[in-house]
């Protein structure tokens, strides 16, 4: 099971966190600080797995962002690397050549996509197309709702003028 997902920038800023195991707010910040320290100082040629507090943390660096996932001892680390790559590819397709800024300004969308890939720390969908389709459908729902809202308020505004 994946215990948490962490996206940190090279400067140590947190871009996204998702927790699948119970951690209090204090614990969360502690974990983030510790792991940032460990991972950001690792050299480029070292392997992508770190042993930490009895768990394994798998991380991968994409441009200026580190994607980290914490798993149990018995999980398959190479598979997690694949999952990380899966997520990044979907983000790429959605945002069109994604960069860190996209994730900063549209963090809620990054979360939605992550929710389509992982639930309860387990993989949900292995097909990128399906995930893209689902996100697109939900986005259009949001769009229509917004349009409805704006059109209603238009009507009311006109009515009360």
């Amino acid at each position, binding site marked *: 099971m994946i215990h948490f997902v962490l996206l940190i920038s090279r400067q140590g800023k947190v871009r*996204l966190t998702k927790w699948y195991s119970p951690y209090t707010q204090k614990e969360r910040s502690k974990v983030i600080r510790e792991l940032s320290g460990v991972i950001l100082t690792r050299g480029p*040629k070292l392997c992508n*797995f770190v042993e930490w507090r009895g768990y394994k943390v798998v991380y991968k660096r994409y441009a200026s962002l580190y994607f980290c996932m914490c798993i149990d001892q018995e999980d398959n680390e*190479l598979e997690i690397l694949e999952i990380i790559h899966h997520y990044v590819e979907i983000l790429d397709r959605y945002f069109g050549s994604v960069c860190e800024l996209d994730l900063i300004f549209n963090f809620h969308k990054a979360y939605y996509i992550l929710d389509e890939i992982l639930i*309860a720390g387990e993989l*949900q*969908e292995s097909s990128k197309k399906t995930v893209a389709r689902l996100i697109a459908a939900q986005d259009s*729902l949001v769009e229509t709702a917004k349009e409805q809202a704006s059109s209603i308020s238009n009507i009311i505004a006109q009515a009360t003028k």
Partner: protein
Amino acid sequence: MIRSIRACKTAAEERAVVRKECAAIRAAINENDQDYRHRNLAKLMFIHMLGYPTHFGQMECLKSIASAGFPEKRIGYLGLMLLLDERQEVLMLVTNSLKQDLNHTNQYIVGLALCALGNICSAEMARDLAPEVERLLQFRDPNIRKKAALCSIRIIKKVPDLAENFINPAAALLKEKHHGVLITGIQLVTDICKVSTEALEFFRKPKCLDGLVKTLRDVVNSPYAPEYDIAGITDPFLHIRLLKLLHVLGQGDADASDCMNDILAQVATKTESNKNAGNAILYECVETIMSIEDNGGLRVLAINILGRFLSNRDNNIRYVALNMLMKAITVDAQAVQRHRATILECVKDLDASIRKRALELVYLLVNESNVKPLTKELIDYLEISDQEFKGDLTAKICSMVEKFSPDKIWYIDQMLKVLSEAGNFVKDEVWHALIVVISNASDLHGYTVRALYRAVQTSIEQESLVRVAIWCIGEYGDMLVNNVGVLNIEDPITVTESDAVDVVEIAIKHHSSDITTKAMAMVALLKLSSRFPSCSERIRDIIVQNKGSLVLELQQRSIEFNSIVEKHQNIRSTLVERMPVLDEATFSGRRAGSLPATVSTSSGTSLNLPNGVAKPAAAPLVDLLDLSSDDAPVPSSSGNDFLQDLLGVDVSPASVQPGTSQAPKAGTDVLLDLLSIGSPPVQNNSTPSDILSSSQDNKSSVAILDGLSPAPSGGAASMIDLLDGFVPNSPKPEDNGPAYPSIVAFESSSLILTFNFSKPPGNPQTTLIQATFTNLSPNVYTDFVFQAAVPKFLQLHLDPASGNTLPASGNGSITQTLRVTNSQHGKKPLVMRTRIAYKLNNRDVLEEGQINNFPRDL
């Protein structure tokens, strides 16, 4: 807002902006503003990610969830998952909303609810909503089904009792075509089986198992499918999940394992391993093969794959391979031995994680046949390894050497190398053990002390090396100087007495020597002052320098030793006799018993093989070797317990104070106290306790007790040998001793006690007394018991009497042999108090007396 926050140049500016925003949001919440609620929530989440407290937003999330529109719900649920965790009570309020949403017509809303539930539900919520989720497992839309499956996983983990309800729906999921549902279904089944054995049995049935195998076969053989393709393999995730499930089902069950053999072989051979996806599948496959029931061919296949992984250039793959090999060792050690050379290379790798794994693996591979080359390699590497790794490496080398060393000389050699290289990393109990071994290897004493002498010339900064060296020089200094016991392999070396003293002096004065080392050096100097009388003055000077030391231990030792050297030459040599051989078996037994079980945390495997060096607990051996001086005085109870255990002697606490608490008393008082251990009847059955007075080291009263105890015969024999050689002032052994007149020790109207004396040859201080009791009265005495008490400078041993009925009127007598040892032989005569108890006509009688008329020179 995000732009404005990012535009801030300093942290203070950012805090100001955030505060303003929070204030605005709080105002909006108070006004219950509907329109901008989702915008505000989004802002709140961003602020939360920056690390600021956002508790005031929690109720907003709830309200957002409760509202009717999809966008609000979406943001509301996101906020819920981000800002809250399962331990908060606020979560309970959401349960109702969740229930409604789970029944919503819009499937995306159902999806949102399932997602939230799956990520953060608590046990109560799980129980409440489980039936809903169960129902949704059969929903028409695959999107909902897969979410429901994962949600069920969380429910089962939180409330294991509900697992049974999910067995049937889960089984249905296994037959799905849709990959997403299939993956989640498989994961659900895996987790159910982990939680409930009933489920495990259910899914092990051939019907189910065959279905799974078929699915796997289909996936492996399936043609190119663009939707699921990763690196040329169709849906590697599905491969891996299926393999995991097979792992769980096959473990411990031979029939199930049989079913899977073919497909596992196929996966292992057909999968391409040039991309990570392929390697991930192979890794999982090897894991599965290792865990299911034994199949020789498959195992060989697996180990071959691991061997291939080991030589891969990619660090990740090598790491993973090392990990797997540790588990493989329990299964097939031979095969892993073949890869020993590669593993040894990995120990020297640049990557710290790989180094650690490889070292653990090497440690597990060590056995009697390969210990020598392996140790050599590791010690060579020790010289070039970096600091953090040295500690681990040293510990492993030491424990390896200790466990598998074929002979003592090799052991000592290796330990010397390690100490010279990395002495500062060596734990205390390791060099304690080394000293025990050295003292036991009596033929190697000369060799050892010379080797240590040489080593110390070069590596004076290694603290442990210095300590071992000065202990040995102190003990065996004469061997060093006189070149005793030179082995063929040694280079000749001449060391003068003053050279030896030099070494110890350097140790005392060296700036990095800590208190323990200095204290040990002082004891060593004392020993040397006795062995090298010519250097006595110089040694005294060195000792005296510490008279004013601020450390109590050093000052005390300095003063005491100084006075011994100056005023008490006559007892000095007996004080610093050779240490008696420390009993190895007892030491290691004691050590194993008193130390906590060690666990190698980094490997995390459940191997029963010993790993790592045991961490020292209260190091009772420290008392024995009189080394710890900077600790607070060891509580005498612990010292006594250990001594009692080790030596099997009941020791009265008052007189055995290990270490520091005795006030320095010059002169014979000290000796008397030390000798008075085991006052009067010391019922000791084996070795002659008569030699006790000769074998003492100043504070190790242990030596005395060692003499008393039923020590292993080898130890006692060597002790006697050494004593014969090194007691300079022992009087010449006389063959039978002068004859002594017998005395009437006690006389009353009804009883006469006669003593006959003899001396055993070679032991002037011991007297054998034959006591004869004669009954003068006309009545028979029954239950006759004779007891005697002697003053502190005497030791008494009573053999059993010949009988306990004394016939009347001198018609017979009881004899009993007594052995008395007079430590003040020649200075004080024997005295004895007697008590005789017997029954006369069933009436108890007690007679007491004092015997003063022993012959003077007994």
